[in-house]
């Protein structure tokens, strides 16, 4: 087990949807990771497509930076449709 790296598993539950993270597993290589992901995460047709990514290749933002990262978006109300005033006669826009 020592040398079996950790892989993150992403599933597309049906055509037309994004792949979504479902968990992780250990496997010797990418082929085994996909086979194991099939057995561990799709025993009841939960997926039509599997992505596996070795966990060490995932870089995540830090929760400590979340203010610096996301605050700038909070005061930009003009990015939302409700910011713009239109007369009531215009129904769908």
């Amino acid at each position, binding site marked *: 087990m020592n040398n079996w790296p950790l892989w993150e598993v992403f599933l597309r539950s049906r055509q037309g949807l994004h792949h979504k993270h479902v968990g992780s597993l250990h496997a010797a290589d990418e082929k085994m990771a996909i086979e194991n992901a099939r057995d561990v995460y799709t*025993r009841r047709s939960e997926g039509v497509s599997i992505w596996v990514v070795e966990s060490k290749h995932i870089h995540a933002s830090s929760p400590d930076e979340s203010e610096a990262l996301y605050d700038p978006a909070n005061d930009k109300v003009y990015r939302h449709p409700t910011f713009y005033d239109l007369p009531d006669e215009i129904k769908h826009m």
Partner: protein
Amino acid sequence: MVPIKSLEEKFQAAVDAEIKIEPKDWMPDAYRKTLIRQISQHAHSEIVGMLPEGNWISRAPSLRRKVGLLAKVQDEAGHGLYLYSACETLGIDREELFEQLNTGKAKYSSIFNYPTTTWADIGAIGWLVDGAAIMNQVMLCRTSYGPYARAMVRICKEESFHQRQGFEILLTLSKGSEEQRAMLQDAVDRWWWPSLMMFGPSDKESTHSAQSMKWKIKRKSNDELRQQFVDATVEQAKILNVTLPDPELKWNEERGHYDFGPIDWEEFWNVVKGNGPCNKERLAARVKAHDEGAWVRDAAVAFAEKQAKRRAEANKVA
């Protein structure tokens, strides 16, 4: 540096506001430790829990029963893997978790230290053991740690088949010969009390409970869950025409719950300490599987390395 005190306050405020805690968020050391202990114990229980049932796969009385039991046991392996995966997000690795199980340092649910002596035991496990586990797991779907909660949601979706599978086995026996009905009653007699013990010590004795409730790791106390299980199960027992082995079991109009007799905590602690009927056998089976699987794990690594080298060489030529 932000002082620990204010980090702790921020953490508790998030928990109180029902905001899930995620792997990279700051969390108190004791919260992390409690979760590692609880999630790994839970994972080990799923894994060891395959052993008593695996005992009957080759002897299932029909193909229908065999495929059902096989699928259930395979699910339990899956549950163990979801939970190990959730546990690893807390910064402990799989190797260490296995080590803790195999050396007896980590605990797993004591219920799996009881033997499965007849086919009716497989039905009783599905009905009572999975039934008790479900009470606990439904609560844990709302636990404060994100990866644990998500694993529980997956697990709960799969559990209801487990319990129904067990109940159907018992229902069939209940409509069978006198011998089959006796086998059913005997299994229920043996599994009832250990199933009640699965919820852990009574609230008065439970050391970790208050803090776990404050952190919203748990949301119901051991005794509350146990009562919920008794209330649901007594009704189901009527359909099976079995007697639950507790003369003090009776409806209490005032409380709106069933009263039940005292639990033999001495037996409980004795099994926890390693003196149950199958503790040694279960652990030995796990250690044997781990040791005998070593060459497979090594071979897989060697094969993966060889493939990677070949690919690299092919790329160089091209």
